[in-house]
């Protein structure tokens, strides 16, 4: 097959190229049956590539570049997952999903995992499995400085731009009810539309997750003319979602994420990876598979974390590459800093033992 060259890691080829003749892309979980433990992992290995559900286009999180290669924060975690399972960060097919069909795509087996900035909630965990949090967020407000609004409580009777179908919509309602205030929602089907509507003064305030608000503020013509209000009205733990019932697969996805977090904590980057493999620190050695043989316990190779870090880097690298100060979004680490960082955040992964 002349095509296999497409899967060559590192070459600037089109996404995603594992076109393998004869290998069935078909799934894995039988629809209508809860997947048995290990089924997804086996299916992904047999197939030779991962089916990763991503957003159909979200600034910084998932988008295709001019050459058709998918990029973004969530996309990098897709690649990391593929690297952990298959040793190759390009062995992924990216499946764009809309907010309507994302969970049904997961349940019917069209995707193996959703890295599609999805808020974890109780009811979502009841029918699916949340496999961790790769982005801690909270909903807040932004208002023009000139309006004199300094607290969300000043927003009585205001129009508020918001993206529809998101948990943001519910939080907003709850918060205003709890405080006995009135408001008028101005809804949009995408985040960027809500943002540009606010920019055109179609509403008096914009509500979204804080990360998005900070990004929106930077994108304004004069960022200093806008203030982020102090109230954070909700918790938004965004993270990967997998099917209910396949515990091994949940572990694989959760520990892919944890590996990037631990790597940052231990100072392992994609640059110093080879040097770190010689490290004498037992923690580093266990993470990189030099001792302990931990990978095998969840059905992976011992050097799975090496592959993850070589592909996407540690959490900090992924963040900075897609969302951080070097990007137009210019997001601060905020809650998404390591627990022992300065300033500290919420990233606190269980140890490799």
């Amino acid at each position, binding site marked *: 097959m002349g095509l296999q060259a497409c899967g060559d890691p590192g070459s600037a080829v089109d996404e995603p190229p594992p076109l393998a003749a004869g290998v069935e892309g078909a799934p894995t979980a039988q*629809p*209508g*049956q*809860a997947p048995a433990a290990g089924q997804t992992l086996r299916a992904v290995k047999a197939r030779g590539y991962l089916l990763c559900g991503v957003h159909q286009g979200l600034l910084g999180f998932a988008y295709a570049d001019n050459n058709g290669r998918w990029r973004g924060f969530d996309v990098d975690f897709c690649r990391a997952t593929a690297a952990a399972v298959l040793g190759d960060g390009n062995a992924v097919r990216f499946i764009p999903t809309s*907010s*309507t069909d994302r*969970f*049904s795509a997961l*349940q019917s087996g069209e995707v193996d995992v959703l890295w599609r900035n999805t808020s974890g909630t109780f*009811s979502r965990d*009841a*029918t699916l499995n949340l496999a961790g949090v790769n982005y801690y967020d909270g909903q807040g407000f932004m208002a023009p400085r000139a309006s004199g609004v300094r607290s969300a409580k000043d927003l009585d*009777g*205001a*129009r508020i731009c918001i993206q*529809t*179908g998101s948990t943001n*919509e*519910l939080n*907003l*309602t*709850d918060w*205003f*009810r709890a405080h006995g205030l009135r*408001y*008028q*929602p*101005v*809804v*949009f*089907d995408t985040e960027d*539309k809500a943002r*540009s*509507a606010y920019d*055109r*003064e*179609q*509403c*008096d305030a914009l509500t979204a997750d804080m990360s998005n608000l900070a990004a929106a503020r930077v994108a304004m013509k004069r960022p200093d003319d806008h203030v982020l209000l102090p109230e954070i009205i909700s918790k938004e733990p965004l993270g990967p979602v997998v099917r*209910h019932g396949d515990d091994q697969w949940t572990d694989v996805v959760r520990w892919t994420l944890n590996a990037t977090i631990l790597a940052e904590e231990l100072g392992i980057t994609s640059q110093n990876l080879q040097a770190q493999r010689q490290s004498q620190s037992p923690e580093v050695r266990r993470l990189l598979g030099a001792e302990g043989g931990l990978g095998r316990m969840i059905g992976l190779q011992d050097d799975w974390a090496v592959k993850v870090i070589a592909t996407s880097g540690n959490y900090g690298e992924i963040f900075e590459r897609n969302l951080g100060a070097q990007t137009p979004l210019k997001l601060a680490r905020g809650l998404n800093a390591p627990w022992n960082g300065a300033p500290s955040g919420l990233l606190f992964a269980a140890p490799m033992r």
Partner: protein
Amino acid sequence: MRRPSKRASFTKGELIIQAVMLAAAVLVIWALAATALANLRARGMASGFEFLERPAGFQIAQSWIAYDPVDSHARVFLVGALNTLSVAAAGIVLATVIGVVAGVARRARSLVARGAASVYVEVARNTPLPIQLLVWYALITAAPPPRAALALGDAIFLTNRGLHLPSLTTAAPAWVLFFILGALGVGSALVLWALTARGATRHRRFVLKGAVVLGLAILGLAIRGVSLPHRTGFGFEGGLEVSPPLLSLLAALTFYTGGYIAEIVRGGLASVDRGQGEAAAALGLSPLQTVRLVTLPQALRVMAPPMVSQYLNLLKNSSLAVVVGYPDLVAVFGGTSLNQTGQAIETLGLVLVFFVAVSLTLSWAVNSWSRRQQRWSVR
């Protein structure tokens, strides 16, 4: 026209074919239902309609009836359905006006009028509606913000938050309902009498006009005054406000459907024999009278069925509201309620039932109208 007798007799083969088809249809539906139930159970997903009673928990931007987030999903359905029907009704009226003007202009003598109408029709009909909607939305939201509103007098303001129009203030809703019922009752009683009473034929027209005037007069009793939009801290208050999503949805539906209606009108006018107009003119009818009494009634018969199917298309196309955020039935119930409850079969099923029911009702009404028209024309 004689209908064939109801008791048709079938050959044995025909009976077998029918029985097999009926059985196959039942079997397919049963198999689908059984599969769905099994799948739902296996995935631990809820089914049934209990969710309709649960509180929805989200706010809706626009509603004709009182709505609060603690209200149930059933009420969300009602709010969405009323929003869909109202935007469709307004769109139908506006598209008809634009369409008739453009359709008549396409048969005008003036080259410029013909040209402008043709450009309009060809653009409206040959570009996708979702794209038109996005463009209209971009145009409307490019209007100035409230502090620099485009004003027409002190009554009409266009801003990027919508169009503010003067409105009539009315008595309490219960009284308005009372007056509407009263007006309808008195009006229809008069009309019925005019249509059925013997010997009243000559006065029929007079009575009909009287019924309309009387009805309007009764309705007028409900009006308490005029409300003008005025500036306040956060934009405008008072008057009638048409929000940008509604405005762009209306503009797009009107623009798109108007193009189709223009073609129907043109075809309808063309279908009336030229000789008819000439004959009417020879009888001394004025051009306006000719159109009103001769051309239009005949053209209308040709135009009615395709017009109605355009109206139904408009109703269905109003579901694109989700693209710009107008809270129609598909957006609030088939979108947000579905996302909250995860009960896709039930929510989408109810949405489809609504649309099919409205469509069937409308086409049934028109079919019976056009049958009556045919009967009259034969006579």
